[in-house]
């Protein structure tokens, strides 16, 4: 019994998202503002909603993701999937995200923020029979609550004792430095926990994969952007002129998150969890960019601040595109093979050609390789880091090389991670029967992925056009702007400071690569014999090379684990050899210790349960002992009264 009434949910939400996206785009390009004041919400203050360029930009990002996810949702086979528990919540989740963007007072912001968490929790727990999903959902909503409490403190600090919650009253009188510092830390915890900053990240790789694929695409690709919007709104808009040291926590935490996120991703064998970890990495990169923008703005270096902020915003846009694409791809694989573990896939490129092609575009884009869109924001980020040594403060000054090195390491690890994912999932020979029997997903789901892939390519080539489109937002946030398209040799060259200093001309590079490969193709075909023959691959002469001889995901990660695992996760490999003459096979085992999970999640959890066990004794006391409690309280209060004059 599938209620037909819900069948229209995905098309309608796709349509609504398109309309909203267009409105946002129009507001972004025209730089206009629209504000409404509704009488609902907090009694004296009401519910303020405002659409300015910043929320318009994020609106475009979010509604783009919602369109793709809805398109993908339409492809679901409504008989099999869990439609009654997912479909009513999907539009609520998308609406809550849009509401967060246009909220213009603390109550409206947190109201829609928490609604967003609630809706996504319900979606994560849709597959409630799986205990893993339930545990992930529980950790997710508890972490979301911690984030909300942190944001409550942030807005409490901004609003002051008088309770001026509307954003324009907050902008009218920014808090004193001490309170501003507390507010920034609270905002970092609140938005960082939703985005997945270390050490508040552990819920993300559990919750995102547990949700249905198009929902995890929304959560990873889009919800983390709402978290970043929250931080940008508080740090750049509401808090007033920044101090230089505000930049340190986002930069340090962001860089660590980027590197550690990828180390987790490289060592993980579950496809969707790898994508969730790489979301953490990209959020880390964005926070580094935001930190640099804060530092440059504090030192009034507006050009550099504009470059850093452009890097952050463009990476928000690019990440929402290629991460949604990759998650939809993962959903397609899950749909086709029913398996999520990389070691069980392989050879899907032959069986799912179109999904493989789109996934390849996504994988190359996320590894920040030219000419795709991931490289545009990565290039801007590197330019910002290269400009960092010009900062006067010693801490930032000496941090810039370390940050530069960590970002480069993150870029290389991302490439390694996604070569591993694509190699084990799509290339080589199928490692399981399900992988061998896979078939491609329905057309509309391919269209969703295709659209996103096209956007990734377009974003890569038209990087400079997107950068100039950001001008109104950049001017509002950091007061600077990127040099316009006219100043470069060609209209599409992306320039950081000025053409002589640094330039990246995506279309010209792409054009030359295309010309070069075409000429080589023609020349080679003219000169060479065009005969090709299919033959068995050389596998050291084994009679029937079974798929098991291929490199699996964990074996691909072995060198990286050996180099980085020892430091980050105290990884040890132990090989147990049987005594000589014993025919039992040798045992190879790897122990990877996740320090962060143990320190920040297992330890507090055990402490709370331990304390509650000790306190539980108070439930089983005798009545006399309860009277003793009452008596002691009475005597304590009486002695306090007696002592104080």
């Amino acid at each position, binding site marked *: 019994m599938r209620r037909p009434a819900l069948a229209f949910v995905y098309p309608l939400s796709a349509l609504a998202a398109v309309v909203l996206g267009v409105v946002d785009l129009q507001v972004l390009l025209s730089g206009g503002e629209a504000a409404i004041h509704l*009488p*609902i*919400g*907090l*009694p*004296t203050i009401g519910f303020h909603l405002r659409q300015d360029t910043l929320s318009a930009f994020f609106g475009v990002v979010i509604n783009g993701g919602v369109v793709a996810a809805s398109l993908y949702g339409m492809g679901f086979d409504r008989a099999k999937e869990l439609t009654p528990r997912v479909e009513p919540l999907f539009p609520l989740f998308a609406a809550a995200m849009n509401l967060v963007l246009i909220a213009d007072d*603390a*109550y409206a912001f*947190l*109201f*829609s923020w*928490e*609604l967003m968490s*609630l809706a996504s929790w319900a979606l994560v*727990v849709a597959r*409630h*029979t799986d*205990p893993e999903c*339930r545990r992930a*959902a*529980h950790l997710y*909503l*508890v972490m979301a*609550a*911690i984030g909300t*409490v942190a944001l*409550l*403190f942030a*807005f*409490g*600090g901004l*609003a*002051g*004792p008088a*309770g001026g*919650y509307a954003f324009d009253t907050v902008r009218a009188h920014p808090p004193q430095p001490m*309170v501003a510092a*507390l507010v920034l830390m609270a905002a970092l915890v609140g938005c960082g926990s939703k985005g997945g900053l270390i050490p508040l990240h552990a819920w993300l790789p559990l919750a995102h994969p547990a949700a249905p694929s198009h929902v995890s695409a929304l959560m990873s690709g889009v919800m983390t952007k709402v978290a970043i919007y929250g931080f940008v709104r508080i740090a750049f808009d509401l808090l007033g002129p920044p101090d230089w040291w505000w930049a340190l926590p986002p930069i340090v935490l962001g860089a660590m998150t980027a590197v550690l996120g990828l180390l987790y991703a490289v060592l993980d064998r579950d496809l969707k969890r790898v994508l969730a970890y790489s979301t953490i990495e990209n959020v880390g990169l964005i926070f580094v960019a935001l930190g640099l923008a804060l530092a440059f703005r504090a030192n009034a270096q507006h050009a550099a601040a504009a470059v850093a902020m452009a890097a952050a915003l463009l990476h928000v846009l690019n990440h929402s595109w290629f991460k949604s694409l990759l998650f939809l791809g993962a959903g397609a694989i899950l749909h086709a093979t029913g398996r999520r573990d990389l070691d069980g896939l392989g050879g899907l490129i032959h069986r799912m050609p179109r999904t493989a092609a789109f996934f390849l575009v996504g994988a190359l884009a996320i590894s920040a390789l030219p000419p795709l869109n991931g490289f545009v924001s990565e290039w801007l980020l590197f330019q910002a880091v290269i400009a960092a040594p010009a900062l006067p403060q010693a801490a930032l000054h000496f941090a810039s090389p370390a940050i530069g090195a960590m970002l480069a390491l993150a870029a290389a690890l991302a490439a390694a991670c996604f070569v591993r994912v694509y190699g084990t999932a799509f290339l080589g020979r199928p490692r399981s029967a399900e992988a061998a029997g896979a078939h491609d997903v329905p057309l509309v789901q391919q269209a969703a992925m295709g659209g996103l892939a096209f956007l990734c390519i377009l974003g890569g080539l038209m990087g400079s056009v997107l950068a100039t489109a950001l001008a109104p937002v950049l001017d509002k946030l950091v007061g600077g702007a990127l040099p316009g398209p006219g100043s470069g040799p060609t209209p599409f060259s992306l320039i950081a400071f000025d053409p002589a200093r640094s330039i990246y001309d995506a279309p010209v590079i792409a054009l030359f690569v295309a010309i070069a490969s075409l000429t080589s193709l023609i020349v080679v075909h003219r000169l060479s014999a065009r005969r090709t023959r299919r033959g068995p691959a050389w596998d050291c002469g084994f009679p029937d090379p079974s798929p098991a001889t291929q490199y699996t995901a964990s074996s691909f990660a072995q060198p990286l684990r050996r180099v980085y695992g020892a430091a980050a996760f105290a990884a040890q490999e132990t090989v147990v050899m049987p005594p000589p003459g014993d025919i039992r096979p040798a045992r190879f085992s790897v122990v990877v210790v996740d320090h962060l999970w143990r320190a920040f999640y297992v330890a507090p959890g055990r402490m*709370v*349960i331990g*304390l*509650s*066990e000790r*306190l*539980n004794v*108070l*439930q089983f*006391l005798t*009545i006399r002992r*309860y*009277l003793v*409690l*009452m008596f*002691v*309280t*009475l005597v304590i*209060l*009486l002695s306090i*009264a007696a002592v*104080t004059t």
Partner: protein
Amino acid sequence: MIHAYQLVVLIPYAAALIFVAVPGYRVGAAANVVVSAATFAAGLWLVVGERSVGDYAIVDEFNIVFIAINTLVGFTTALFSASYIGHEIETGRLSPSFVRFYHAMFQAMMGSMNVALIANNIGVMWVGLELATLITVVMVGLYRTPQAIEAAWKYFILASVGISLAFFGTILIYLAGQPALGEGVPAMTWSLLQAAAARMDPAILDLAFIFLLIGYGTKVGLAPLHAWLPDAHAEGPTPISAVLSGLLLNVALYALLRFKMLVAGQPAALDPGPVMVVMGLVSLIFAAFMLYQRRDIKRLFAYSSIEHMGLIVFAFGMGGPLANFAGLLHMAMHSLTKSGIFFAVGHIAQAKGTQRIAEIRGLSVTHPRLAVVFALAVLAICGLPPFGVFTSEFLILTTTFAREPWLALLPAFGLLIGFGALLMRLQDTMFGEPVGPAHHVNASSVPMMLHLLLVLAAGIFLPPVLVAWFQRAAELLG
């Protein structure tokens, strides 16, 4: 000319006398609902009507908030108890003889609570509150199971000690008021006492407030004095748990706040704020930790009541117009949501035949409609939007952070710990493969839905009339 406040008291007491004579359960239940509806109507008339201060009765901005909540929740509880007790009799857990005086006691309890709220005389208020308490002691023992009797016995002893301490506090207030207001009734009248607060002796006021805090604090269920509350909720019939959590705790809090106003009137006396803040925080954090070990679903929500009363006392302890307003709002939201939860829990216990959380699984599969209402109510009590509890917790935490940034960490910590436990239990009961029996229950969803809708409405839109009324009450609190 009959005044509204007289009606609010006379209707329940008269009904109580009549119900003693009514043997049948069916007729009693229906009559109970009608009488409660009448009391609710009288309550509304009181709220709308003009304020008045008589010798023995007072109607001001502050206490009509409580009367409105009491009469409303009383009415919905009567509705719920009609179907609940009916089902209990059918399944044989309650024999008609046990339930003989149930409705009489129900109305007597409602009447005494209204007396306590209306009384302008601190002695009459004490009598009203203690009468209501003793009636609930008897109702907790209704099931006559060993645990129920043990719970009632514990409740009886702790309440008696609380009663005597509160009475001593009342005597002290009389002694403090005597030099300014002369002997006899005037020295026990709220309005006069409040006016003469500045002329009272600070030392006696401090001593009195301590005894009153311990005496009435036991009824509010603050941490060291809470021992009776979990067992009374768990072993008593669910309508009584709803009444306990929804109403009786509030009436005791009303008494405490009246005396706080009185003591606050005398600047030389010890400021009651910090004491209430400390006891509120202790209750909040202690109850939050205790939630993790609970195996019985009603005991779980009893501890959640202690947690929320702790938060409310914390809010009133902080003082100031915004915090007081938030405290009043939270109290209203808590009593509506918690009684709604107990209605749902009652039906769940009947549907699954047990109150042990371990044996309640997969409600969303077996009873979808009941499960959704229960889940929404629990998410509301956890302080998630779009419900009213989120609004009040939002106000409490932001104002506390604005005034004392480091202090705000403690209530937030307590709420988060509590949230973790409640969510864990909610997921245990709602999801997973269904376990054990799944009897059909003709759940009377009207009370549950009504409460949920009211809380939802408060979360989204607080009518200005209500806001102005709460703000005037908040000013009175100082």
